[in-house]
């Protein structure tokens, strides 16, 4: 004898939503939600700023009809609408999509980590340049970046780093007379 489902429509919907969210995460489709959320977020910030400016500014100081606030308020509004639309269209697209192998399964994640490491090295470089100075931080930066980019031989890496750093010094500092951060130890 067939058993009747006693689950209410709301429970069924919630269950489908939970399964859908789990599948989205597994399929790395979470990014679609993040994209929409980012658009919504920027829109909210823009609109909030626009509202703040329209309310707090002295009307006599504004020489034009729009002022500095309304323009950015409406841009924020458009972004919020775009964000909501993107979220909605992503939801509909994901419902009809089959499960695809995740990036981990296809081996793509390894490559993304290299890119991540290169970005991290860049962040470290920009952080230490003010402390150690351009001439110390730059060779370290190139050593690490060449290694991450695939130059496996350390001797070749060191030679390349020295050549490039020297070339940069002569072109940008000596010839173009650009002034880079000297660091705390060099003045």
């Amino acid at each position: 004898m067939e058993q009747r489902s006693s689950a209410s429509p709301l429970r069924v919907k919630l269950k489908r939503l939970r399964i859908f969210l789990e599948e989205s995460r597994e399929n790395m489709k979470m990014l679609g939600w993040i994209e929409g959320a980012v658009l919504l977020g920027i829109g909210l910030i823009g609109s909030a700023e626009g509202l703040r400016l329209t309310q707090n500014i002295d009307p006599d100081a504004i020489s034009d009809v729009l002022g500095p606030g309304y323009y950015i308020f409406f841009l924020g509004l458009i972004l919020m609408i775009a964000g909501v639309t993107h979220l909605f269209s992503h939801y509909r697209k994901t419902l009809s999509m089959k499960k695809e192998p995740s990036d981990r399964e296809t081996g793509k994640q390894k490559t993304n980590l290299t890119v991540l490491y290169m970005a991290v090295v860049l962040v470290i470089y920009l952080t230490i340049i003010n402390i150690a100075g351009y001439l110390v931080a730059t060779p370290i930066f190139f050593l690490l970046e060449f290694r991450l980019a695939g130059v496996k031989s350390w001797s070749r890496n060191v030679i390349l780093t020295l050549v490039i750093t020297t070339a940069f010094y002569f072109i940008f500092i000596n010839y173009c007379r650009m002034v880079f951060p000297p660091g705390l130890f060099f003045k």
Partner: protein
Amino acid sequence: MDLIHGIINVFSPLNLFYCLLGCLFGTLVGVLPGLGPATTMAILLPITMYLNPTGSIIMLAGIYYGAQYGGSTTSILVNIPGETSSVPTCFDGYPMTKQGRAGQALCIAAIGSFIAGTFGVLGISFVGIGVAKYALKFGPAEYFALLFFSLTALITISGSSVIKGLGAGVTGLVLASMGTDPMTGVGRLTFGTIGLTRGLEIIPVAVGLFGIGEILINAEAGIAKIYEGKLGKMMPRGKDLKKGLGACLRGAIVGLPLGVIPGIAPPIASFLAYDLEKKISKYPERFGSGMIEGVAAPEAANNATAQTGFLPLMAFGIPTSPAMAIILTALMINGLKPGPLLFQEQKQFIWTVIGSMYIGNVILLILNLPLVGLWARISVLPYKYLGPVILGICVIGAYSSRNTMFDVWVALGAGILGYVMRKKHWPMAPLILGFVLGPLFEEALRQSLSIGGPLIFFRRPISLVLFVCAILVVIISLKYLRRVSKGDDPGT
């Protein structure tokens, strides 16, 4: 007479050197997969501050149209398009190589690019001044309508999703409004930071989006097989030459008017030209197996579009693509305001730049044919050596605009944004153009509303026509252009 004086000026040693340098860089950039003309121009933009205005624009322009020439080399020889605009060239170019006709494919691609490029420059020479005179009638309402049309076209044509285009474009406008409001002096979106009070500079944003973003993406690129076969006969003959030349002319006719429309970057024109050639051919089923028309038409179209893209920039000050936006930035850095007054107040400069495009086309023809073997070998230079060097140049470039580390952080942020946008197929052209045109857009809007309220846009005929054109572009784009394969953002 102005044009002749302009061409004579190009033959000065310095200008000729910059023209040659631009063409050389452009061909190199076109040949190297993963490095687009907009990226290279963004990276070299800070260096242009140290050059004279004429030289810097000649060089940047040479990079842009030179890349269209160079992109065909690797498409034909190793089936890897150097530029997005050279993707259709692979379809028939590589099969021609496998048939031992690589030389003919390269030759007709270069000839097609030269013919179309020359037509494009002729168009700018004779139409540009008339358009510029007409542009003098433009007031704030007309400018706003033109900017609105440009951004709308770009948003709907770039990329595969209108919502993504809209999001990118409006985000660009929002980023452009950060800083101090020029009319009232109040801070907007500064979050209390001194760095943001001065707003975001275009150089770090461009260098980050196109330079750092591109390097991060290309850290994943592989190495192609070096082409080791013979090129065969260089010059096509008889029927092949006739068919090739016919396709060149048709490709040029397709590409020339498309270049003035914002959002129609060379890749779109090359796909449309290839499609057209296939449709009108007696043997459409043979396309994809080595038809010379399949190489000639897209190469001619992409070059024609690249050249005529300068027309709206010079006449109105409106860039139609990210590469043009970078040239606009270079013009502004050098204190030159593009637009109708440029043709009147800076005659020597403008005609020298236009004259350099004639000479540049000849230089590119010379560079591309005899040196094709060299370019083929350079095209497989491992990215592991190039990438970190370009990253270093990007950091310096971002720093050089205001000598502050804040700009370098902005470049890094833009680079990460550019990387994510490319990975997730968000179009970059609306973002960068929204950012570059944002101040003009806001100024024109606020001035128009102050003069005549919202109805001013409908009372002035030019403005009304442009708004109608914007709506038509949206409809046409949604109905027809979605069929054209886009892949990554064609704007780079």
